[in-house]
């Protein structure tokens, strides 16, 4: 089982059970996860992106027990973001990068984003885009951050042919929006924040199951939530293989 949406380090506003790396790995193993793509909460607010990615790589190597795959962050609103991208792949052997546009103050329609997607395609790096990190209603009043608008993404993808993208933490995408994104390129989705008694079942009817990859958003969310959603949706064995493993393998370039 591959969990495509996990975070290391500390959420800025409270301690979370499992926010120490050893505890997180132990929990993931206990529920059957064999590989977890780990970003860092530090990526949200730290400006030394190079330091964030270095510590992430070191932490995954030191305590990841062969389970954690580091996913570095790149902030295309920063100067010399291209060097961060280069280091992620060439120095740290990362297979994916994770973007937090709303915490970094940029939209998906800028020239730098287009350039980033183009570079990621050239380097065969997966680009994860985290739409949101927390319900707006519960955010700290001093740091209110709206979700990322995905409206410009379809056009940006069409211009960066071949780039693989995974949308994390989407919540209220309409069926038309999901279909448009899925048609615009090689776009996959997790379902950590998809809600409603038929939330995942509806997602599975709207886009091919091969575009859905398991992502828990642990430790901010309890991993049992995403696991339970698959049960609630009555996924077949084949669908579960896709959701839990095959889609992620293909996204990371490990699949056939």
């Amino acid at each position, binding site marked *: 089982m591959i969990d495509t949406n996990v975070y290391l380090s500390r959420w800025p506003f*409270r*301690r*979370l*059970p*499992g926010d120490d790396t050893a505890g997180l790995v132990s929990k993931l193993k206990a529920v059957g996860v064999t590989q977890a793509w780990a970003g860092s909460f530090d990526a949200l607010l730290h400006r030394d992106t190079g330091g964030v990615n270095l510590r992430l790589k070191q932490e995954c190597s030191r305590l990841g027990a062969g389970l954690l795959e580091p996913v570095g962050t790149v902030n295309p609103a920063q100067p010399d973001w291209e060097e961060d991208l280069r280091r992620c792949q060439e120095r740290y052997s990362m297979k994916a990068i994770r973007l937090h546009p709303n915490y970094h103050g940029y939209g998906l329609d800028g020239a730098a984003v287009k350039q980033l997607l183009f570079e990621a395609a050239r380097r065969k790096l997966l680009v994860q885009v985290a739409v949101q990190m*927390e*319900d*707006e*209603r*519960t*955010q*700290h*009043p001093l740091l*209110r951050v709206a979700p990322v608008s995905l409206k410009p993404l379809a056009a940006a993808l069409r211009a960066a042919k071949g780039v693989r993208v995974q949308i994390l933490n989407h919540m209220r995408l309409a069926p038309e929006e999901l279909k448009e994104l899925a048609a615009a390129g090689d776009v996959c989705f997790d379902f950590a*924040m*998809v*809600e*409603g*008694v038929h*939330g*995942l079942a509806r997602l599975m009817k709207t886009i091919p199951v091969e575009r859905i990859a398991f992502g828990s958003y*642990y*430790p*901010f*969310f*309890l*991993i*049992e*939530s*995403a*696991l*339970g*959603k698959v*049960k*609630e949706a*009555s996924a077949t064995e084949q669908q579960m293989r896709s959701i839990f493993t095959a889609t992620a393998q293909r996204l990371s370039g490990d699949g056939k």
Partner: protein
Amino acid sequence: MAEVIRLGDRMGIERFCIYLGYEREYDPDPRQMRAHNDSVLRALDHYRHRAFGFVYLNPNYLDESLKEFDRCVRDGPMVGVKLWVAKRCSAPELDPIIERAGAMKAVIFQHTWFKTNGNLPGESTPMDLAELAARHSTVPVICGHTGGNWEIGIRAVRSRPNVWIGLAGSDPTNGFVEMAVRELGAERIIWGSDAGGRSLASQLAKVTGSTVPEEAKQLILGGNLKKMMLPIIKAKGFRL
């Protein structure tokens, strides 16, 4: 209702407490209020063995609300009261409702949120509920959703022993149940699903994924609510 029961079977839920029909008026008039409760009564006709009903009341129509309580709870099969966003619950208009419900030992569920981006005009916060609970210190009330911002909500009701918190209706954020058990004790926490709007899975995860002891989880998942409902269930001759 059939679909909710089917999903409940799959996810291990034995009984549902149901309230509100399909519409979502923030301030329903008496006709609308009765329509909501008629929907629940119809559902109970078919699913009495799997569901308990709560009467939906609007304190802005106090006389009609008290009559609805009598129709649905005193003289009907419902066992609880649902209060939503028509009026902040600290208002004195709620006192007769709480007194009447308390006299019959009906379960009282008050929606609460404490939204960073602002509440609806009549939407209660946990602090409002704490005020109401102070005026009716012998009547148990459930702080629905624990205000969403549960770190604040738990603190707001901590000193009111007649307030239980409801877990339903927020994201499956890690640490909620741990803080609640630490500050309130497992006996004052009640699990709920907020189904339709939420998945059963995300809401169950709050308890099943928490690090509290198994005995605490069992209390939260059903033991506490059963104990709260027992007096009115027995009075009505129902079986749990």
